[in-house]
């Protein structure tokens, strides 16, 4: 059984079709990296996986459970298992680092404060921000913010993590620290779907790479096949333009 599966997934913005009929399946523990030019529909596809965007047609299955707009409670419970990291972090600015990480397990899962605190401290230490516990996000660098965002998602003990261009808003110097945390996660066996422009990360960490353009999957394969011997002309063009 696949941990994520889309069937005939279609998304339109008005008369513009972003993508049509996408069938993608991800196995447990797999790291899937989606690359492609801007406007190719890769981010929108990722955002459909946890229904931040409602698909116009088709279905998303998370651990075999179909996401159903009409059953909000079931949808929330299913989405809880899917953590998401955004390009612009979207941390809660009125909460400290620790509060950001503790908020969802307490509010959404009604876990006890003491239990969540223990877990939160471990996770925050894992992303290397132990000394920033009491800081507000405005006092952190971009890389630190993104690591808090990852910690916040991990605090919900998700089975799947989605990353929507997690390093695109960062200073080049700060990209490494975020990719480092993601690499560790992948090593621990987390199922990850990553939309990124970081080819180095894709080569090194991905189990499978999907190249999207114009709302279609142009090519997919293991990083070795994909980067060393791409089959499609469009893929070659794209890879040639990347330094």
């Amino acid at each position, binding site marked *: 059984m696949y941990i994520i599966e889309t069937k005939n997934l279609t998304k339109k913005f008005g008369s513009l079709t972003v993508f049509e009929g996408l069938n993608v399946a991800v196995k447990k523990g797999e790291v899937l990296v989606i690359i492609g030019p801007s406007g190719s529909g890769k981010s929108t596809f990722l955002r459909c996986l946890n229904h931040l965007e409602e698909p116009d047609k088709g279905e998303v299955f998370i651990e075999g459970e179909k996401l159903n707009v009409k059953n909000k409670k079931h949808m929330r419970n299913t*989405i809880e298992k899917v953590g998401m990291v955004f390009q612009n972090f*979207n941390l809660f600015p009125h909460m400290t680092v620790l509060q950001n990480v503790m908020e969802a397990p307490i509010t959404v899962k009604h876990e006890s404060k003491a239990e969540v605190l223990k877990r939160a401290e471990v996770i925050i230490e894992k992303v290397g921000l132990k000394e920033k516990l009491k800081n507000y996000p405005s006092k952190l660098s971009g890389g630190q913010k993104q690591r808090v965002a990852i910690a916040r998602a991990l605090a919900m003990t998700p089975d799947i993590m989605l990353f929507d261009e997690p390093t695109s808003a960062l200073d080049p110097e700060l990209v490494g620290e975020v990719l480092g945390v993601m690499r560790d996660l992948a090593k621990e066996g987390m199922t990850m779907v990553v939309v990124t422009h970081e080819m180095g990360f894709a080569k090194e960490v991905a189990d499978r790479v999907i190249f999207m353009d114009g709302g279609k999957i142009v090519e997919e394969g293991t990083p070795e096949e994909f980067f060393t011997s791409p089959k499609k002309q469009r893929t070659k063009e794209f890879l040639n333009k990347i330094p």
Partner: protein
Amino acid sequence: MDINILRDMFPVLLKGSLITLELTLISVVLGSLLGMVTALLKLSKNKLVVTVAGFYTWLFRGTPMLLQLFVLYYGLPYIGIKFTPFQAAVIGLSLNSGAYMGEIIRGGILSVDKGQFEACKSLGFTYFHTMKRVILPQTFKIIIPSVGNEFITMLKDTSLVSTIAMVEIMRSAQLLYASSFRPMEAFFITGCLYLFMTTIFTTVFSYYEKRLSVY
């Protein structure tokens, strides 16, 4: 101005100013609750609810408060609904304040980054928890200056209820000068008391503004 007359008038006007404060606080608190509901209704996806809330703001922002108070106090008794001056004043002021607060709060909610809603959704928050834990606390910080403004406007607008036989500070001033023929003394004290009250509110609000700017 005669110091003795000032001294005689002061206790009466101070008492009136307490009524003014009471009216302001009750109306702004009720108005804020009403405004919160109005703002959430106006942001809902249900068209009927949006229309009803829109009608309310349209009506109460689009007509003078004096007219609203007159309808409540002088008009409604003709269809069998009677209010005491205090009741009519509180209802009128709250409904009016609610319409303005609704727009302030709605604007505040809309100016919270859309990414905050997305983060909440991706973490499995319900609408209620999203609002309570994440959106409204941020809204509150954004709207504090406007709310302070509304508070002060409301404090001064309570003077309008003097026209429906509600004895607050303005009405007390009118009564005093009519009986003593000493308008300057009465209005001087009244002005000072208004300034004193608005200064307190301004100070309290700038304190909160500073406290909330830690993030």
